[in-house]
């Protein structure tokens, strides 16, 4: 069992349990782990917009550099943008400084493997073991890593999403979307993405602010009163809300009804399995049975995994099944297998299917 890594990385209250000493040590353990298989690992590091992002990024970078990893700072990015970059680009690993939807006093560290998935439990255990035993392999002065910056991670990600959807079809619809980024890091990507999809956007809390002044960062109904009200007030087609690191999106339909994530997933799965005429779907055991209902209707198989996006992604890789993009080479995890953790992927799919959402919900 891992002591530090929880379901989605290491989390804690800043400068209490989540402090620079921990980050520095984890950086060293991480680098030591990577160096077992790669001579000169390249690690991309990005953060959400929390106030302690720079502090922790500096600390963990120092640890990675001291083991001889090159660190590429990609700045403020949605978690999926970093995952996508790690998968598509020549990075051996990725680090996201984020506490996802937790309150602002929290921060954390998420690990990304070279294929873009979140670290498996095995990797997290290995890193923790190195950390607790302090068996670091440190570079001497001439072997320490270099620090580079890469400013294009967000654009690269937006282009990646656009290349996976029918842009013209979405543009034709001229959707009006109320977007609530909750002052999280989605602000740097989602408005641009939706604009490129020809959507009219009404923004709510789309200014970066690590204190989350708009509302708590978790996109649950009690935090989204303003969004729900705005959707009906302006007569939008859709409302969308993201969590602090924009790896989750939640939707409000045109009547102001909050759609639970499971239903959004089921909605997308329904249409994709229909289009693909079946296939295999992978989802955690906590997913509503509405998911099973809609996909089995389309002759698709369902595999249930333990809870946590790493398990879903790993299972998908292990089964070597293509989930929704059968027959295509680009099967990037965040867009395909882990829809519920891919904030912008959700938005785009709603662009495609949003008009028919009510049908799906009636299924259940």
């Amino acid at each position, binding site marked *: 069992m891992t002591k530090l890594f929880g379901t989605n990385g290491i989390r804690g209250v800043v*400068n209490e349990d989540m402090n620079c000493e921990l980050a520095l040590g984890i950086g060293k353990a991480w680098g030591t782990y990577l160096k077992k298989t790669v001579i000169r690992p390249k690690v991309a590091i990005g953060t959400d917009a929390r106030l302690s992002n720079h502090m922790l990024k*500096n600390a963990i970078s120092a640890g990675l*550099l*001291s083991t001889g990893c090159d660190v590429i700072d990609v700045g403020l990015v949605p978690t999926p943008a970093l995952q996508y970059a790690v998968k598509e680009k020549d990075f051996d690993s990725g680090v996201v400084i984020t506490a996802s939807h937790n309150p602002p006093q929290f921060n954390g560290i998420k690990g990304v493997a070279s294929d873009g998935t979140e670290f498996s439990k095995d990797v997290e255990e290995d890193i923790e073991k190195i950390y607790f035993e302090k068996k670091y392999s440190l570079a001497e002065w001439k072997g*320490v890593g270099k620090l580079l910056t890469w400013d294009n991670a967000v654009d690269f990600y937006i282009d990646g999403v656009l290349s996976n959807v029918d842009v013209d079809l979405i543009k034709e619809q001229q959707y009006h979307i109320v977007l609530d980024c909750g002052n999280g890091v989605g602000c740097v990507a989602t408005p641009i993405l939706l604009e490129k999809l020809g959507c009219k956007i009404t923004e709510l809390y789309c200014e970066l602010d690590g204190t989350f002044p708009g509302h708590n960062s978790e996109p649950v109904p009690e935090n989204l009163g303003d969004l729900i009200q705005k959707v009906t007030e302006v007569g939008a087609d859709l409302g969308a809300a993201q969590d602090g690191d924009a790896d989750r999106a939640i939707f409000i339909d045109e009547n102001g009804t909050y759609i639970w994530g499971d239903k959004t997933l089921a909605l997308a799965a329904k249409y994709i399995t229909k289009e693909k005429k079946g296939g295999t779907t992978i989802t955690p055991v906590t997913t509503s049975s509405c998911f099973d209902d809609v996909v089995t209707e389309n002759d698709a198989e369902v595999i249930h995994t333990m809870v946590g996006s790493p398990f879903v992604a790993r299972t998908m890789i292990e089964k070597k099944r293509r989930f929704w993009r059968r027959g295509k080479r680009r099967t990037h995890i965040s867009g395909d297998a882990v829809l519920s953790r891919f904030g912008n992927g959700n938005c785009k799919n709603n662009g495609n299917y949003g008009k028919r959402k009510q049908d799906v919900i009636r299924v259940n």
Partner: protein
Amino acid sequence: MKLDISKHIFRAYDIRGLYEKDISPEIFYKIGLAAGNYVKNVIHGKQIAVGNDIRQSSIPLVHSFIAGVSATGIDIVYTGNTAFGQTLFKGWELKQDLIAFVTASHLPPEWNGIKFYYGDGVGLPEKELMKIRDFTLNNDFDAVGWEKVGDVKSVDPKTSYKNFFKSKFKFNKKLKVAIDCGGASTTLSAPDVFDAVGLDTVHVFCEPDPSFSKRPSEPKPENLTVLVDAVKKNNCDFGVAFDGDGDRSVIVDNTGKILSADETGIILGKYGLAEKKGTIIVNVECSKAVKEQLEPLGFKVKQIPVGHTFLTLEAKLEKSPLGIESSGHLILPEYFLFDDALVVPLKIAEILDNNEKTLGELAAEIPTYPTKKEVIDCDDHIKFDVVERLKVELTKEFENINAMDGVRVDLKNGWVLIRSSNTSPIIRLTTEADNEKILGQLTTQFMDKTEEIIEKFKGESK
């Protein structure tokens, strides 16, 4: 976090040690916490500029240092990989409360360290540095809550630094200068700035080479043979070599002669300062030629203890036009107080632009006196007492005594300075005289005196 930190890394002017031996990212994280605490609770400031030299180990060290400062709630402007002058300039321009530069100056590449300056360009005196040392060793600092964590902003100082010099220097002549950066940090500043102000340049080791494989980063005469050849071969008006971080420069005249810091300082004072007034600051090791050459022009010359932090502080207090440290730190406060070595060659170029003579001719007008530097072994536990006793005895014997840093005796035809080393079990004796004969006599006389006192102490301790 429990760490074994040697207090010896904290030196009189800076922090220095061998990477992953005396200093490490963990230790720099703690020094960052201590520096943040110093800014917050001692000088009651809010922000700090941080940069680092080109050494490879500077990267993990600077980022852990920044993490530490940030944890105390102090905001950081990070200037990145720069020459000393670029970071100092940015911190000064942005009126930061403190400026920290990660470097081991001229030491070999396996070393690293950190220097601290205030935002006005004055180096932290030893007393203040020791406060940061004590905070570090005693874990005397607090990490703030999440909402108060310091912000980190990256700012590239290169353009504003270059533009500053462009606004200050204009040349009518086409002057040709050979630049020797030794592959070190001034590769990031000097070639760019010299081009921008319109100097013709010949590059010697101007490609970044963080392991200093082309020449050692100490610009001693024996390390500058390539530069000297380049000056002569290319008929340059002069040449300049920088140390590892760029706080010291050495000027080579058009004949290939390497000038001492004193000679360079005298030329700056004689030809480079429009108004011949004010107090020029020199340390106790400087040649008597400085006083002889500059006082008749209308300047006052004030002696200060050895160390560039005294230089910047005294220059500020005295509103000096020039400061000369015999080790090679030269300051021209008409630009700024900190000892950015880049101003020296630029000022030399300005002097040549306004003067018909060559630098070799100007240098030849300055008398040079023979000097001698001797080292006398003396145990650490008595070396300071020996010098104290010498002060007492020499004060009885001679009239012109300066005891601010060791003891200096000024005589009609020369002078002698006796100081104990801060770091090694030795006492240093420096002599300068009108001629070799007197030099020999003075050296013997004062060496004998010193050894006599050492013997007395040895006898007493038995």
